[in-house]
Structure formats: structure tokens, C-alpha cells
């Protein structure tokens, strides 16, 4: 059985599993990191959105064999600084965004990525930028998500 070593939320981990198992199952079923959720398994719903080396990715669509030892994966569990929440998490609470909460870890990870990308590209977080977000929320919290991203961006 192949062995895989990489970093998850700042911690070095090693798992023994077949190369083709997608990172989402390695995180959830083998490492017990359950913040990233299963919603489709085909990179559509984005409920599993996490970061790899600081950028958004969808672990349902990446085989663990494609992850190298230097890769740093960050899930929703890894973005706060101890008790101090990431500004985007705080914005989510301030705007009471989440209803059932199932998609929201992925939404927050996608939002952080969007703000970073827009900032790098010199774009503002306007309606066009917000329309780019592909994450599904079946509770329909989209409008509070839009408001929270703008608020979170101001504090990032």
C-alpha cells in the first residue's frame, strides 16, 4: 500500500492508501477532517472547497497520489488563528449567513480565495465578481453570502 505524506492544517500527516483515492476521502474517512463536505464528488457543488498552498481547490477531484510532501492543505478547520476567527468567518457570523451550514465551510474557503484573487488582480468585489462563485447553497443563503464577503474583504 503506497504511503503519502503531506501537511494538513499545519500538521504533517502520513496515510497508507491507494494512489487513486481522492483527497476528500483521505481527509474525511481516514484523517477525520470533516469540515470539507461531500455534495457531488465531481467538482460541481464545491462543498469540499479547501486550499492547497494558499489557493482554492476541490479535494473530491484530486487523487492523493498527486499530492507531494511539500504540499500544504488547509481546510476550514485550519484558517482561524487559535480562538481568533478569520475575518471571513467573523463576517459569516456577523451576517448570520449559515442556515443548515452544510455548504458553508466550502463557501468560506471559496470566498477567501475570491477576495485574494480579486485583490491580486486589482479588481473590486462587485456583483460580477460575486457572480463568479460556483458554490451551491441549497438553503438559498446567497444574498447574505454576498454581503458577508464584502464585509470580510474589508477586514482581510
Amino acid at each position, binding site marked *: 500500500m503506497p504511503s503519502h505524506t503531506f501537511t494538513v492544517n499545519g500538521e504533517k500527516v502520513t496515510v497508507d492508501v491507494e494512489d487513486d483515492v481522492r483527497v476528500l476521502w483521505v481527509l474525511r474517512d481516514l484523517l477525520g477532517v470533516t469540515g470539507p463536505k461531500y455534495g457531488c464528488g465531481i467538482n460541481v457543488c464545491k462543498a469540499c472547497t479547501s486550499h492547497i498552498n494558499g489557493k482554492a481547490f476541490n479535494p473530491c477531484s*484530486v487523487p492523493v497520489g498527486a499530492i507531494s510532501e511539500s504540499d500544504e492543505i488547509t481546510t476550514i478547520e485550519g484558517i482561524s488563528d487559535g480562538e481568533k476567527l478569520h475575518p471571513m468567518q467573523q463576517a459569516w457570523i456577523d451576517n448570520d*449567513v*449559515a*442556515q443548515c*451550514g452544510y455548504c458553508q465551510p466550502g463557501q468560506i474557503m471559496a470566498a477567501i480565495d475570491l477576495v485574494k484573487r480579486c485583490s491580486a488582480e486589482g479588481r473590486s468585489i462587485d456583483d460580477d465578481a460575486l457572480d463568479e462563485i460556483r458554490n451551491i447553497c441549497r438553503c438559498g443563503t446567497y444574498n447574505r453570502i454576498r454581503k458577508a464577503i464584502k464585509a470580510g474583504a474589508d477586514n482581510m
Partner: protein
Amino acid sequence: MPAHSAPAPERPAPEEGRKNVSRRRFLGYLVAAPTLVVAAEMGRQTFFNGVPQANAAAIPSPPLPAELYDLLDVIRDSARPTANLIRIEVNRDGTVSFALPRSDNGQGIITSTQMIIAEEMNLDPDQVIVTLADARPELVFNQLTGGSTTTFSTYTPIRVAAALAQKRLLAAAANELRQDVNVLRSRQGLITGNNGESLPFGELTELASSSVDEAVDVVLKDREQFTVIGTPRTKSDALAMVTGKKKFLADLRIPDALPTVICRGPNLNSAPQGVNNIDEVRNMPGVTDVEQVPTGVAVRAKTFGQAVDAVNALDVDWDGGTAEGENDESVLAALRRGELPLAVPQVPGETVEGDFTFYFRSNSALETNCAIADVRDGSAEIWGPSKSPIAAQAEIAKKLGIPQNAVTVHVTEGGGSFGRRLFFDGLEEAAECSKAFGKPVKLIWTRADDSRQGRTHPMATTRVRAQVSGDAVSSFEIRHTSVATEINPGLSEAITAAATKAPGGNYTVSQSIYVTTQVNPYNVGAATSLLNEVDMRFNTCSMRNIYSPDTATARELMIDQVAAKMGKDPYEFRSEFTKLNRWKNVVDRAAEEADWGKSMPEGTAQGIAMHVEYKGVACAVVELDCRPETVNRKIRSARTGPRVTKVTYVVDGGLIINPRGFEAQMMGGINDGIAMTLTAGLHLVDGHFLEASWDNYFYTRQWNTPPEMNIVLIEDSEAPEPGGAGEFGVAATCGAIACAYARATGKVPTSFPILHNEPLPFEPYPTVPPVPPSPTNGLDFVR
């Protein structure tokens, strides 16, 4: 999004009815226990007083049954006989706990229940611990979560129990402090006397306890003294949700409950007829077990991904399922054959008619159908996000051939429901899989199964005929013909138990739901609304209501046409013809907030619609952009189409416990309405649904949602108690979008979702193997 609350423009004076309500005495129960435990009956008397003020009427319509006795009343009344069963406990650490016999799937009822208890006991809501109760068969009909009924049916019983607890704690403190109870103040779990001496709840709970069961008279707090109810509050699990700590079913670590996936057939409800390569698949990486079960072939594996790979490798013989050979057209033809006649004869020049088709829509939540089961040694322990756990417990016991009390059902918090989790098919399947393997399982449906084999909002037609004579409407008939909606066993028992109380009585279960939910809000002479169902063995259920989003769409489109025939503006007609002043106020407020009638560019338009249900009234005004550059905008794997650019939603929902939560429910309902009206339909082709995921089934996305949303909650409603919230955002939104589409394009839409019959913007996934495999190129999208 300037959503806010505001008082209604014309505030009715507090009427006698409300005062009587607050002074009524209720019976609570002290329960013998070492610490303070109080209880109250779930059922209680209604207290609707007085006749609502009528709006100036044209030809007044006698009320449809739902105006007198609606679904909320049915559910509450069915719960009446199951007495003395909800308990509040005051703990030694000063907290107060309550196990809510309902299911929370994001609708915020845990938070609002904390608020209700905190209000009566003068606590901070954080001091109240609300959990979801396990299945409790003695509650009979009273552990159902559906029809937006939770707060309506639990509000008073919970208050009665909490008020009794407060009364006992005060009496115990008076005794301890040797002061008159009237000089004591209770704040945040501390009872303070007039000399500053104080005692916390935790120290008083033993002293306040009772050694015998006893019935006690209690008086509830006056509404005028509320400090918690009616103030916006963030959900109590907000922190857990944004940090990834909230545990959903699949996140639970139950020893040895490995991921389990069922291989399902190519057609709707195909049953397995044998597996040709079971041993080969048993040897695949990570796989621990493979067995045939009634609904397919179950695979248990070390990881969910390996279970899916094994499912896709299975070679299974299947039967043709329950809808073999059927498609959208054949179902429509069957519905046509089932349509009930319109009764009023057509009169040339006076008759306005419409005929509308509503296709199947998926009720898939983001968390797919799921459950954990451990069936061993003649007993079963089940975990699942169930809205009807008692019925689940009974059915699972029957299936396993063990007594009902050998089955424990734990209700977990769900990742969305919208009606779906009234059905416990996932729980039953998990029990069957666990029994087949002799091991615990964590059953998770794949997205493809949830979309193709899951439950749907039934396909239906709605026909409307109205007669317009001069300045009046003399009749308005609605005939709704629907693929049969399956009603879960628990719910159907509750409905049949109470349905005969509805005026007219003796309906079938579906008809009972229909007649207790359908209100025509206008004075349109002889108004009738009838349902006929055609049973075609589809997996159906309520989806943020069963009938109303469709009937409201049809009704509101026809109201616009009636208005046009009379030379009236859509808003003016509604304001003039709606039956009650409470309803008219909401319509007027919506028009004012939305700047109704403002100038709009060609190809865009406003639409207005109202809806009465759930003891409340809502009016939506939407702005819809149907210009080609908007309709034809290109987004990868998406339905774009017309864009709703702004929604104004004014709602009088009665007494609102948590305005922030109520507004959230309206927002969700509005986004559902957008999907149902414009983009989100299932295509039935040759016995199966084509749509296998969110890149086929077009639920509202960021690029569809309105950039501007203004939700206005009417404060100081004349209604004396809470109404329903969970489904209340949908119907008026659907109607308003349909009306806006007709006004923007000049074409009255006749089938829904409006884009359903446009060319498919996707290549359907195969049905065999049943699960689209996970891609491997995820890193290519990192940018």
C-alpha cells in the same frame, strides 16, 4: 441588501383578542424529580378572536376551507391528545435544558426555541440548551417537522412549561430569602431580592423540585413585556458552522460504521435481479462487504470513494423500475386524462382561461440522503436527520421483524430538508444494509442517486377559468391535477386523525392537505379550488410546500389577465380586490417599497404577486431582466436565462420570534422560487430522470440570485401568535416572477420552469455505471 423590519403603515390598535390571550391561564405540570422538571401539554385550545376586518369588496368570495381551518391547525390539533409530554429541566449548573421533538435542518428552530424559553424564564438564550429528541413513540403525531408548523404548534406549550419553571424558582427563592415573591427579580438565571441578596437557578433547582406529579396553573408573560422574542438573534450554532465543527450525519464517528453506498439501477426504482460479479467486486481495494439489498446492491468500504468505485464496477441485472417507458409527455397525457372539469360555462367576451404545466423538480438537499445503522443481536440503533422519527422507528422495526422498542432512532441535525426528510427511506435502507452485513454502516447516497432516484416535487397541471363581468369577477375556478404526492406514514396518520375536522370533512389525505393550504386571497365571486391526483408510482414529496408554488403561479398570472381585462393595473387590482385589510396593507406596502410602476427599460419588467398561507400574508414584487444580452450570457455548465435583478418581499407572518431567522427563511424561499419558476426542472426520459448532479439540475446559483433583495417583516401584526416561515418565501415569489416574465416579454408563460423545454445545456451522464466518477484534474483549476 437593505433587509429590515418596520412597522406596518397603518397599525391596528391592540385588539381585545390579544389581551385575552396573554391573560389566559394555562395548565403546566410539575414532574416528580430531584431537581426542577416541568412539563406541558403539546395541544391547547385555539384562541383566534373576532372577525378579521374586510377590505372593501367587489363580489365577495366565501372563504375557502383553508381560511377557516388550515394545515397548521390540522397538525396542531392532531397533536392535542398526546398530553403532558414536553419537559424543561433546570440543571444544577444553572442552565435549562429541553429536548425539542422536532428536526432542525437549518430552519433555525433550535435558536427560536431557546428564545421562547429564555423569554419566560428571563434568561439569556445562551443559557438554554436545546437538543433534538430521539424518537419518542408516546408523542404519537407530535414529532413531525413539516408544513412550516413547528413554531405554531410548539410556541404555547413550551412557554407554559417555562413559565411554570420560573414560577417555582421564584417561589423557592422567596422561601429561602424570606421575602415576598413580588419583590424578587429574575435575571439571567439569578433571582435577586430587594436587599441585593441573590440565588442562582442552580442552587434553587432542588428546592423548587417536586416529590409528586402535580398540575399547576400558570400565567404567561404579556407580549408587551417581551425582551427576547421579536429581537434579531444569530443562530446558536453559527460558530460551529463557520469553523467546520458542526457535525452532520456523515461526520459522526460511530465505531466500525464504514461508508456504504448502494448501486442502483438505470431506471427510476429499478430493483436488482441478481449480481454477476459479486466476488470480484468484494476483492476491490478498500471493499469490506457487498450484498444485494431490496433497493440495489450495497457496498461497504474503507472510504466513500472506494465504495463508489466498487458500485460502478458491479454488473447487476435490473428490472424496468416503476416508470418504465414513461417520459414528460406521457405523464402530461396521463394528467390531462385526470383533469377535473371546470364548472362555470364559458361566456364569450367574459371568460379568461389559462392552462399551465409544472414539470418534476428535484427535492435533493446538499447533504444527500444518509443514515447510520447498527443492527445486531435483535436490536437496532439508527442515526439520521429524520423529520418523522416515530414512523421511521415503527417501519424499521416492522422491516427487521423486531419490536418497536428494540429500535432507537437518534435525530441528527440535517444538511437541508425542504420536506425531503419527512421520508426516512435512507434510515430504512441503512438498517437493511447493516442487517445484511451484520456490521454497522454509514449509508450515504451519491449525488446522482439523490437527483435521479430521490424525491421530487410532483409534475402537475393547473387550469384556471375566471368570469369577468364589467367591474367585477363573478367566478374563479382552479383545477390542480398532480402526480400523486406520497405522504409519509406518520404524517398521513396525523392528517387523517384531524382531517375530518376541516369543513367538508372526509377528504383523502392529499385532498385534506390541499383544502387546508389553498386560499384565494381575492374577492372573485364563486371561488373554487380542487385537486385530483394520478398515482404513477413516482418518488414524490413536499418541497417547500406541495401545491402552493404552482397554484399561486397559475392564479397570479390569471389575476394579471383579469386585471388587464378590466383595465386595471396589476397592483391596483390586488389592492382593491384582496379580501382583508391585513392583506391589503401588505400589498400596498410592497408596492410602495418596490416603487411599483417605475419606468423600466424595454425587455425588463416588474411583476407582483401575493399569497396567503401559514396564518400570514406575503407580497412579492420582482424585477426581471429578459433582454437577450442577459438571457444569453454564457457561464460554464450553467443555465443563465432571465435574471431576477431585485426582489421586494413584504410579509406579515404573525408574531415573529426571531426576525433574523424569519428573514433568512424568506431569502431561502425566494431563491427556491427563482429556481422553480425559471431554471430547475427534472427531465423524465424513458423511465429515468436525466439530471445527475448540480451541473444538470439548475438550482439557483450566485449568477441567478438577485443582487438586490429587500425583505420587510411587518412588526406588530394583528395576528396573535406565530405563523409558519419555512415555506412562506416561495409561492409569492414564483407568482411574481411569472407575472414579470409575461410583462417583460409579452408572452404568458405556460410551462414551468420556464426554460424546461429549451435545448438541454448538458450531455446527460450514463445511467450504467450509475455514478459519474470523480475527476482527477482538480489541480488544473487552481489559479
